[in-house]
């Protein structure tokens, strides 16, 4: 069942050297993308969950490099609605395209797809597990603004349990010896496997009730929304105190506020006009990263 085709399912699939190469490639792509690099190639976009940025940035990247796209943005208009298994869907899509990008609500779905496809598979988010291309976008955005990824003070906040962007990013950042601060709402704790990963690598981290108490220490503030669509428990979650402009009075001038979007009450519009807001630039960087990935995997 297992193939030997290289895929990107987890951020752990990439070595530090490979991450550096992708970030460097993204810099070049952002300046001067080679317009016919992927002429004749087809990307299959298999999105079983809603997406704006990830799906469209992959498609934008592919078109900008001269390639084409096919696929679906929701599964209800596919044979999945007739009960077709994911494995069968991927085997069929692999015959129609040169690379598959998949987003699916079940954890491990991208790994299964990579195991059965005879073309590369890129994980665009599998349940609450991983989102490696968002992580690469985040790393790229941080380095672009901060000038480095080394030894930064970074807060990861919001939904620590179900936000896959936090899981992937925490793992990726551990290469660069950050000081991490985690702020969560209610019982939304960090999964054991992420804690284990960080402890194994000797990363310093701490947990905090509110982000406001740590703002002056930070280089990067990474916000996420509550992933209510993934909650496996009933009962209310104590809402986090939303960030306000007034909270930013004593922050570093170089503070960078990131959010993978879409946002909810955790990131009000008033923050957009502060010099620290970097999330729309972050979204734009996603196209360059996906161009770099398509070049690498095709």
């Amino acid at each position: 069942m297992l193939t030997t085709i290289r895929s990107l399912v987890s951020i752990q699939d990439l070595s530090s050297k490979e991450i550096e190469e992708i970030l460097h490639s993204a810099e070049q792509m952002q300046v001067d993308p080679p317009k016919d690099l992927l002429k004749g190639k087809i990307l299959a976009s298999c999105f079983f969950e809603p997406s704006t940025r990830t799906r469209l940035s992959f498609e934008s990247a592919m078109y900008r490099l001269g390639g084409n796209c096919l696929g679906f943005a929701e599964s209800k208009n596919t044979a999945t609605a007739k009960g077709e298994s994911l494995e069968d869907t991927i085997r069929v899509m692999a015959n129609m395209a040169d690379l598959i990008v998949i987003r699916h609500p079940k954890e491990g779905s991208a790994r299964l797809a990579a195991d059965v496809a005879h073309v590369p598979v890129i994980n665009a988010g599998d349940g609450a597990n991983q989102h490696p291309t968002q992580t690469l976008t985040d790393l790229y955005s941080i380095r672009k603004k901060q000038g480095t990824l080394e030894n930064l003070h970074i807060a990861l906040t919001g939904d620590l349990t179900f936000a896959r962007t936090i899981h992937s990013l925490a793992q990726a950042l551990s290469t660069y010896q950050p000081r991490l601060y985690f702020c969560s709402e209610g019982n939304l704790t960090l999964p054991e496997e992420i804690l284990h990963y960080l402890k194994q690598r000797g990363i310093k981290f701490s947990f905090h009730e509110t982000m406001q108490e740590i703002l002056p220490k930070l280089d990067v503030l990474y916000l996420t929304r509550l992933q209510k669509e993934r909650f496996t428990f009933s009962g209310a979650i104590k809402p986090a105190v939303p960030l306000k402009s007034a909270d930013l009075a004593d922050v570093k001038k170089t503070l960078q506020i990131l959010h993978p979007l879409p946002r909810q009450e955790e990131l009000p519009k008033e923050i957009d006009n502060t010099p620290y807001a970097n999330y729309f630039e972050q979204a734009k960087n996603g196209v360059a990263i996906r161009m770099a990935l398509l070049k690498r995997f095709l």
Partner: protein
Amino acid sequence: MSTLSVTAIQMGTVIDHIRPHAALKLLQLLKLDQQGAQITVGLNLKSASMGRKDLIKIEGTHLQEKALEPLAIFAPKASINWIENFTITQKFFAKLPKTLSKILTCPSSNCISHQEGIDSCFHIQATPMATLLICHFCERIYTQQRMLADDLT
């Protein structure tokens, strides 16, 4: 060659030095009861080295190391003894495998392995504190105690 003091079988396999209360779960895990062989289980027996132990005797067959790989994870101190003419002819310990497939179920209800009816697969990682089982699909990490504690087969 020595003989086992607890009991005697003419030919077969004895899995000895299983920690107390684990034999019945191991029997289920290894599906030994489904192979048609006559099986005897000793629970909470006195042991000079362990204080108390469990034991499993399978008559008429020499179980191969590959079939007993889960022992290395869930009963690492258990010895596997082949018996011929009431005598131990070989004694060995199960080696920790790199992966374990089909035998266990991922505890995460949102893991794709439940939905698709595919074979489970765990990567095995030995650490000083515990042996860890990492789901190949959803990447969740479990200790061997957690997997044995739940009814996960």
